[in-house]
């Protein structure tokens, strides 16, 4: 087995893709974002309940997609739950840097999400890793109700 592949599909990532955490409906969510990766057909429905102070009180997702998109969404929801708006925003930026730029060291605050660094060697797969985060970014900008995002810009 070659090392790039093992770096991409580490055991933790495969585990989260097989048994995604926080997977399911969130009936009292204030914001719902439908995320679409048209180049692959990956889909995510992200539901977020923000507290009165703007913190992420609860966050769950449903959808279907490849191991990378599922694991990224699963790890993301675990990381974001309970975070303040400011903390969540910092994590969002840190994750985007992690998978797109050549930063030397990933911030420890990302925890297991750092395992997704392997996608940098697979440029076609970066969108898979980033899909759920783009959905969360949209959730931060949506006061309430539903919204949709796509990894490809619509005209």
């Amino acid at each position, binding site marked *: *087995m070659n090392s790039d592949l093992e770096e991409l599909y580490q055991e933790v990532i495969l585990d989260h893709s097989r048994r995604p955490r926080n997977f399911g409906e969130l009936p009292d969510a204030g914001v719902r974002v439908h995320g679409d990766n048209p180049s692959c*057909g990956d*889909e995510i429905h992200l539901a977020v309940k923000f507290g009165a102070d703007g913190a992420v009180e609860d966050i769950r997702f449903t959808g279907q997609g490849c191991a990378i998109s599922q694991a990224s969404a699963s790890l993301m929801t675990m990381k974001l739950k309970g975070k303040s708006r400011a903390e969540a925003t910092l994590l969002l930026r840190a994750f985007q840097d992690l998978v797109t730029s050549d930063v030397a060291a990933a911030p420890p605050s990302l925890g297991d999400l750092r395992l997704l660094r392997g996608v940098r060697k697979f440029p076609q797969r970066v969108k898979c890793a980033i899909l759920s985060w783009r959905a969360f970014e949209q959730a931060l900008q949506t006061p309430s109700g539903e919204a949709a995002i796509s990894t490809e810009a619509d005209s």
Partner: protein
Amino acid sequence: MHKSALIDWEKIRADFPILDQQVRDQPLIYFDNAATTQKPRAVIETLRNYYEHDNANVHRGLHELSSRATEAYERSRQRVAEFIGAESEEEIVFTRGTTESINLVAQAWGGKFLRPGNVVLLTEMEHHSNLVPWQLIAEKTGAELRFVPVRDDGTLALEKLSSLLTKEVKMFAFTHISNSLGTINPVTELCARARAIGALTLVDLAQSIGHIPVNVRELGCDLAAFSGHKMAGPTGIGVLYGRREILEAIPPWQGGGEMITSVTLQKTTFKRSPHRFEAGTPDIAGAIGLAAAIDYLERIGRADIFQHDSRLTSYAMERLTEIPSLRLLGPPAPRGALVGFVMAAAHPHDLTTFADQRGLALRGGHHCNQPLMRRFGLPGTTRASFYFYNTLEEIDRMVEILRDAVHFFA
């Protein structure tokens, strides 16, 4: 024994220099032929020879090189006409590919002839290139789109045809071979049915032209489209075939040089088809390269290519069923030289990434068939598509790699 068994396919494979390479330290296995095929040395050398000796613009220069380029370009048109059984080379329009050919018909023919209430009949299995151009013109003209459904086994629901093919239908546009299911549609029958109610037919030959014998007059279609690059030719060149009287009735599409007879500041008169549809400098080298690809394919023979491709496809279908939790899509043989499948253990994108690390080029995703994927409730599939230079050993290797993938992901 069929003649294809006597052909030295190994020697033919050696005509394709690109196949002799390692990808990620493993021998390349190229199974993405439905997306684009590889090019034999004969085609590559024809392109090089043209640029090294004859390159000039066509139909204008009164010098030696321009004459050579023009002659070679027009000879290629003649060659295409023979290859597909057209009545004359005037029925052959060079385009950038299948997509552009269909857009030309949708925009120029549809723009002139479609009215509110008219219907363009398509099928649920069309590639986006034979769907989106029709959506655009339907919106502009008020015409309506209808679709022949696809059955669970991947064939067209022909029993629905009578109720769909009503007198409002002005155009029936459909694919010869499905690029994700491999279904070979009964083109002759479909064209006859459309003709009986006075509708025109346009056949998308992209997946069939390089793989099986195709004769447009035997098929009985009015229009047909294909790309050079899916039949061992260069990218950037394609063909729109149209029966003479139909092309003559279609107004110009793009304006510019090459397609005019006289121009004043206020008014222009246009050449007859096919030149009327070829504004600007065409892909001269591409057309000449396409003719070289035709020469190459005809030396082997498409009937033998189909025999060989079919052997690969049947063998792949048989071997793939050995893999637990793998489900094949599409009808049984005879079918196009491709197999689409889904595996419970792994998503198509994980599978193709995994395969790529072993030097195996597969395609994963919706294959520009989003409505069809939705029809089958799938986010996408993995596809292995073959051409005559592929081997049974490569299929064995694919099965081995897919088995490893099951262990890796499950």
